[in-house]
């Protein structure tokens, strides 16, 4: 079966519309624009799981959200349908670097309190403060390109 290849512009529009629709279904939950966040939802899931076993009364105040697991599952389905699923093997000297990169990505994401997807959704929600975040994101990418090209 051949799978459709969507253009990025239309994919972006779809992501934005589905995000808004999901926000309407999930309702307001202690944060604005919190229908999808790669960092925040994983954090909520881990917190809920740990609290469920240690302090069950505290866990009732939290809502666990499975969306990051869903992304992995959806990408798996899509790659199986389009027959693009192939296992890329580990590079031996890359393991520790990847682990550290993931570790620091989580920490910086939690410092900023959003992942890049939620950043752009907050921008469209009218949060002007986040414009600084967009500029910072672009600045970080620009600096790294300059360093890597040398």
């Amino acid at each position, binding site marked *: 079966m051949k799978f459709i290849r969507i*253009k990025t*512009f239309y*994919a*972006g*529009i779809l*992501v*934005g519309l589905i995000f*808004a629709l999901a926000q309407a279904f*999930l*309702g307001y939950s202690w944060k*604005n624009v919190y*229908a999808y966040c790669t*960092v925040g939802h*994983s*954090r909520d899931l881990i917190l809920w799981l740990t609290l469920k076993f240690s302090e069950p009364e505290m866990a*009732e105040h939290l809502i666990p959200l*499975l*969306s990051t697991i*869903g*992304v*992995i599952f*959806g*990408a798996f*389905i*899509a790659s199986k349908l*389009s027959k*693009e699923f*192939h*296992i*890329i093997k*580990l590079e031996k000297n*890359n393991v520790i670097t*990847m*682990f*550290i990169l*993931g570790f*620091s990505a*989580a*920490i910086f*994401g939690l*410092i*900023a*309190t959003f992942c*890049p*997807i939620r950043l*752009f959704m907050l921008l469209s*929600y*009218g*949060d002007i*403060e*986040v414009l600084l*975040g967009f*500029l910072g*994101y*672009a600045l*970080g990418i*620009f*600096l*790294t*390109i300059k360093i890597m090209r040398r």
Partner: protein
Amino acid sequence: MQYLSLTYFLAISFTIGVVFGLIGHSSRFCTMAGIRNLFLFKNKEMFLGIIGMIVGGIIGFTILNFIVPTAFFDFPIFLKTKVFIKASKLLLIVIGCIGLGIISTYADACPFRMHVKAGSGNLNSIIYLLGFYFGLVYFILFLQDLIMSVFFF
């Protein structure tokens, strides 16, 4: 009743995740690659994805705000609440975003794209995700109180 609502939230959020995963794999969508390609190759195609996301968000929020106003608490934030008040929040946003930019460029994908890559069988990004979840736990346990006590102004 509490467990009913729990299953509702779990089901809805899982569905959103699956749909985002399908879109993310079939369009190679990545926020970092959009900005990087614009700087490096002057290639606008990926950057248009970001623009599309903002446009789609504005359209969706504006339309659904009329139908379900309770879900969109103070919708245009810059009109409803005062912005640029807490200096610590701005500082944290800027620090976090510069860090996210640097890390994403070195890892060659933003966190969302890394999840998609892990789903399509890249073992390197599964190691990245392992570090990611480990980092979340580390932040909750040790760094949260430290940062709250330093950035209190």
